[in-house]
């Protein structure tokens, strides 16, 4: 689970954000809708501990994490938070499989090749595992990045505009996959987006 209270962040004195409180239990999906400039990505980076909040609290699995040091935050993030970025980026010299295993390696966990293969099968890119990521289509790349976020079985999956560059068909597929996979590992799913198409498929949502 993940919950925030009175979370705020300032890039500069004239550019401050305060964010509404929310909480998302295990196996739940939370949609955070907002137009550009509303601080969607900032909110996600705060939850991912990529930014340190100027005020407020964040709990993941009932642990207060806003006060963690930089290295402790990196370690906590690697083990407990999976992130799906808007554009799928990879270490492009590595194969699809190695990009998945990289997630285990950098979090200091055992490299689970079987799990990578299993995820690839259920997300439908098993035949691409040995290819370079640049050889895959946009939709396939997005599915690989979902698999990468799942590799360490995190408690929270954060997705930043996972569907905005996809057509209607793929958009629905991707969000269903995300929901299904997070439920399978018992994680909370938080999707930050401006994509109104997702309103219909996620019940719980807040607007920025």
């Amino acid at each position, binding site marked *: 689970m993940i919950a925030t209270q009175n979370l705020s962040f300032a890039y500069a004195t004239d550019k401050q954000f305060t964010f509404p409180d929310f909480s998302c239990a295990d196996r739940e999906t939370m949609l955070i809708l907002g137009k550009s400039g509303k601080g969607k990505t*900032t909110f996600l980076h705060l939850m991912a501990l*990529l930014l340190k909040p100027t005020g407020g609290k964040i709990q993941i699995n009932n642990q207060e994490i806003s006060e963690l040091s930089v290295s402790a935050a*990196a370690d906590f993030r690697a083990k407990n938070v999976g992130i799906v970025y808007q554009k799928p980026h990879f*270490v492009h010299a*590595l194969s699809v499989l*190695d990009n998945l295993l*990289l997630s285990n390696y*950098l*979090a*200091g966990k055992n490299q689970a090749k079987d799990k990578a293969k299993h995820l690839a099968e259920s997300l439908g890119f098993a035949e691409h595992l040995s290819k370079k990521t640049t050889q895959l289509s946009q939709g396939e790349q997005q599915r690989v990045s979902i698999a990468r976020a799942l590799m360490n079985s995190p408690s929270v999956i954060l997705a930043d505009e996972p569907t905005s560059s996809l057509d209607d068909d793929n958009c629905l597929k991707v969000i269903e996959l995300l929901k299904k996979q997070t439920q399978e590992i018992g994680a909370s799913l938080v999707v930050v987006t401006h994509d109104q198409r997702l309103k219909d498929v996620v019940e719980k949502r807040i607007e920025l």
Partner: protein
Amino acid sequence: MNLLKISTSNLKDKPLTSFLSILLMALGIAIISLLLLAGKQIEEKFTRNVAGIDMVVGAKGSPLQLILSSIYQIDAPTGNISMEEANRLTRSPLVKSVIPLSMGDNYQGYRIVGTNPKYLEHFQAEFEQGKVFENPMEIVVGAKVAKNLGLKVGDSFASQHGYDQEGHAHDAKKFKVVGILKNTNSVLDQMMVTPLESVWEVHDEGHHEEEVGKGANALKLLEEDNNNVEANSPMDEGKEITSMLVKFRNPAMGMMMARSINLNSTLQTATPAIEINRLFALMGFGIDALKLIALVIIIVSGLSVFVSLYNSLKERKYEMALMLSMGASRTRLFLLLLLEGLIISVLGFVIGIILSRLGLWIMSENIEQNFHYDFNVLSLLKEEFWLFLGGLFIGILAAAIPSLGIYNINISKTLADE
């Protein structure tokens, strides 16, 4: 999955850039290593062959030429000297021993040198087969010559005039092989040794029939001239030799004697140590220049690593931020990039060392064909260890400077911007 795998994948992902960096590093290392190897081996050969000889006496001319021809058998002799005049020197109480040398013929490009058994003793030569020569026209063959020409005891052959295979053949008189030497690792391995009398015999007989100018080389002309002058002088029926190797009882006193010979006779003396130092000083200048060029190549290799990492780091900024967000520490990523420089240095060094050995081997084959001098190829030098450290240092430094940028990446901003 580990740092090494990511590094090598990154290098393989840009094969041309990596190839260029490795190639430059390898070239620089190869040139320096080749110079070190060749210099060392030449010096070793030269020092080993010169051991125990304090002075060489020969005809007037270049002292370096006299040393090269009489000790190393690689240059043409300066001319002939009268045996009688040379012998007069040996009576001096300062002289411990002398070895006369008479050159002028070859067989298949290998020099035939007329001398006495003391020459063999000088090199502490041992016999593989047969025994030392006792009579004229008997000949003892060096290990390498025997091997390359397939000579055995009992074989006989006619020599050719001069120092290469194009000389006029002295068909009438044949040499008979009586001994094959063991390897001495000296110039003796590339020579054939016979009594002084053989050389006189071959030339007395052939001398007047030879036509000067017909296929003769300059050296031959020179020698013929000398011979003619001597032959025409009415009073001298005496024998000639090419030069004489001298050992002194006391080298310091010997130097005084050398000075007086140079002043008061038609002979010239040369001190091997001095001439060889002079030769090394001359060569050293060229070697230093080459080393400098090689060093520049290595530095350019470092620059190439620097530029390619600097550029790729700009391209890979997002990748780095991504890995940071996935739990990598900045130091780990810094090491990852250092590793790329390190791999280039190590590969460059290994390839460079292989190239230098290959180069030396080719050089050795060539030199052996032309000068009958050989190199021992596979020794690893102490200096090459320092070369290795130097190469590593340049590779790591070149990688470290652009990689420090890792510590300035703003993860959130980089991830949000793209």
